[in-house]
């Protein structure tokens, strides 16, 4: 097959880093070409060069065998390139159709022909199987649908090559499935797709060929059929990777935390958590599986004191903690990795050292005489944790906002785990992280478990739930629909339960303890 696009010897330097080091990449017409690599490996830089957002220091781009000079996105669009960014560029208050035509409105004498816009968008959506209602406001549709609007935008501008920058990062498993169908439709219609991801499973599921980047260099391009998971992982990380966490069977001890008939309502009164009861034993990981938004976050915030439960109790070693504010709950030995590290877990404008004491900042040894910061203790603590948890760069004075996502998460993990909490609440602990960081955090969670901590793990990634948990609870619509020992369940069954399937009818010949017991 012909190459539609060739990037030759692309090099791009940023101060202190070579983001792209002599990369040559061929994209064949009509293929789905996966571009994988860890965060910071240069995938996005390369695509931003292609799309005209960055200028390469050297190198050439050929489109249909012709050398092109892409100086800005408009040139890229005119040449038939379309890019869907991780963060959508949509106007919330406008409709789907209005967003799609934005910038290339069908207009006569400055009057926009909205009817034509709606028709065009509807036709395009139908042609490619992108289910979305042209007249809906963007603010009212789901993230998955918003992504389709972004794809429609590119198609409306007659993109022949579509670049998808980590499109699955924001999607639920179901939405990912749907996206893959859309990608296959596009491929059938002749669109070439460059699919950026760091999830190897997705590469194997959808792509024809795959190129791996590591530290700004192209490690290699493979036919997807001729490669496999361990090989790609090794190419990405540069060493052999443990894909499954190695762990011994749990040695559950006595009950550390009991959640008893918790009910939570949100501000507008929606019943978010319905009568949830769970016991978590020392030395075990209780996974909570579920499609996001089924009450997991509300449950976690009720446990950690960030939100009040309407009724019910949370007991830690038999003593109630559900009426306490977050600080005393922490002091009693509850560690918490929050779901959203930017919103909850970190103060991005603070240094690594100052983030390492968030929540402990009012305790000895970090304060003296109740008021003054003990800089020496703060720095020693940070220095120790940075080394122990391999935070890079190991500069404790650096602002956290300048760290990569994986290292930001390591700061939180270091802070929470180093106190050896007896009860550890981990919510989406590896979201958006690359393989190396995921592996590290998974190991640390198991280490905590083996040290006798009781661990709750909330995750939307079934792989993560299955590889770390000893028991799995499934949350659907605010209720815990089932609690299963991990060895007696699998991805299919959990997927079924997560979508509201009936626990009794769940596939697999398993005993099911229901939450009601």
């Amino acid at each position, binding site marked *: 097959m012909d190459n539609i696009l060739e990037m030759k010897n692309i090099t791009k330097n940023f*101060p202190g880093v070579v983001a792209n080091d002599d990369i040559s990449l061929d994209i064949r017409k009509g293929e789905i070409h996966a571009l994988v690599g860890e965060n910071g490996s240069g995938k996005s830089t390369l695509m931003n060069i292609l799309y005209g957002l960055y200028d390469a220091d050297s190198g050439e781009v050929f489109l249909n065998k012709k050398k092109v000079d892409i100086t800005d996105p408009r040139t890229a669009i005119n040449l038939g390139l379309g890019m869907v960014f991780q963060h959508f560029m949509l106007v919330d208050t406008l409709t789907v159709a209005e967003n799609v035509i934005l910038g290339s409105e069908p207009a006569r004498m400055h009057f926009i022909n909205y009817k034509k816009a709606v028709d065009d968008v509807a036709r395009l959506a139908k042609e490619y199987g992108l289910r979305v209602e042209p007249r809906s406001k963007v603010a009212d549709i789901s993230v998955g649908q918003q992504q389709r609007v972004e794809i429609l935008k590119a198609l409306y501008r007659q993109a022949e090559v579509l670049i998808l920058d980590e499109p699955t990062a924001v999607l639920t498993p179901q939405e990912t499935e749907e996206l893959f169908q859309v990608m296959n439709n596009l491929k059938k219609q002749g669109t070439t797709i460059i699919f950026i991801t760091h999830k190897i499973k997705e590469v194997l599921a959808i792509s024809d060929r795959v190129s791996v980047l590591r530290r700004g260099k192209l490690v290699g391009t493979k036919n997807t059929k001729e490669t496999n998971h361990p090989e790609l992982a090794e190419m990405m990380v540069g060493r052999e990777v443990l894909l499954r966490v190695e762990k011994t069977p749990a040695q559950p001890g006595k009950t550390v935390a009991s959640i008893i008939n918790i009910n939570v309502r949100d501000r507008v009164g929606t019943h978010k958590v319905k009568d949830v009861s769970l016991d978590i034993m020392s030395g075990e990981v209780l996974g909570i599986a579920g499609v996001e938004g089924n009450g997991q976050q509300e449950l976690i915030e009720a446990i950690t004191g960030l939100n009040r439960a309407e009724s019910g109790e949370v007991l830690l070693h038999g003593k109630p903690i559900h009426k306490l*504010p*977050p*600080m005393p709950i922490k002091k009693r030995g509850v560690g918490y990795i929050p779901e959203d590290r930017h919103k909850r*877990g*970190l*103060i991005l404008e603070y240094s690594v050292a100052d983030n390492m004491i*968030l929540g402990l900042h009012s305790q000895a040894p970090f304060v003296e005489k109740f*008021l003054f910061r003990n800089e020496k203790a703060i720095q020693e603590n940070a220095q120790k944790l940075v080394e122990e948890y391999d935070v890079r760069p190991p500069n404790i004075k650096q602002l956290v906002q300048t760290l990569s996502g994986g290292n930001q998460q390591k700061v939180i993990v270091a802070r929470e785990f180093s106190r050896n909490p007896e009860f550890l609440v981990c919510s989406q602990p590896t979201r958006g992280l690359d393989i190396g960081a995921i592996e590290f955090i998974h190991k640390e969670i198991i280490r905590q478990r083996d040290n006798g901590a009781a661990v709750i793990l909330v995750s939307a990634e079934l792989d993560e739930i299955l590889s770390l948990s000893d028991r799995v609870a499934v949350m659907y619509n605010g209720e815990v629909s089932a609690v299963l020992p991990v060895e007696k369940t699998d991805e299919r069954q959990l997927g079924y339960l997560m979508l509201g399937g009936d626990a009794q009818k769940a596939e697999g010949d398993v005993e099911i303890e229901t939450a009601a017991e």
Partner: protein
Amino acid sequence: MLRLKLQQSSLISRDLLVPIVSVLLALLVGAIFILIVGENPLHAYKVLFLESFGSIRSIATTLQRATPLIFTGLAVAFAFRCGLFNIGAEGQLYVGAMAAAIVGITFTGLPKIIHLPMAIIAGMVAGGLWAAVPGLLKAKLGVHEVINTIMMNFIAFYLTDFLVTGPFHGGRWAPETDRIMPTAVLERLFVPTRLNTGIILAVVAIILVYIILWKTRTGYEIRAVGFNPTAAEYGGISVSKNIVLAMVLSGALASLAGVEQILGVHGRFIQRFSPDLGFMGIAVALLGKNHPVGVFFAAVLFGALRTGAAAMDRLTDVPRELVVIIQALIIMFVAADELTRRLIARRRKA
């Protein structure tokens, strides 16, 4: 993203660069106005500079003008570090001034070592309580502090109007109180200028604000709330407690501007004595990048402009209002710091 990193590494120099370039740009644009008036800008600026920094006496005058601006600038900056926009420094300094004046007038026969601190503390308490109201409303009910601090300004103006023309109206015809007792006076440091020991208080305040914000647990909490209230909450920091605390301390700082004016300059409370010192504090904090040391230099600059204005008016054809134009331009350039930064960047490229 990498571009952002680059900016981070040069954060400190950038923080200094934008204000300095803003001042220079403002002087440059001001020069155009001077040319329009038909004067030589260099000459006018020379007069301005000599009058404000040319002798010990003029430096003393500049510092005296800067003193209340240091307090109001610190007040605005402090609240801002907690994510609060205190537009109420003007009102807080009026109630603080009135409280200090009342204590200064009413108590007689006290030794200075007791009377003066008493008057100062009375002012700080009044200003702090005044600011606590919008703080509490924000913390408990979520009402935006900008609205309430502005409203509290009007209440402060009319309350002090009433007090100075009613219960505490002095023996003279003018709307002012009697003189405060000599035991409550902030001593003059450099007669004939009106520079007084208030400047020492201001320097102490700068140091204290710095220590509170960066060396104590309280400052850690206040800044955490200012940067990211949800993460602060996660870290067990009470957002509402710190909002109220930051407002109270901000109000107390603002009130010191009034206290200094009454105990150190006027010797009595005069109706509407403040030439917008509280509002100028916003500009000072902005130019000083909400840092106590930055506030000091910004206040000195604004004090100098005011000091030099009269001489420029007298000795050249340039009216004193030019100084107001320059101040406004400085604020514009600092506020549009993205624009200023781009101008700097272009310069570097070229």
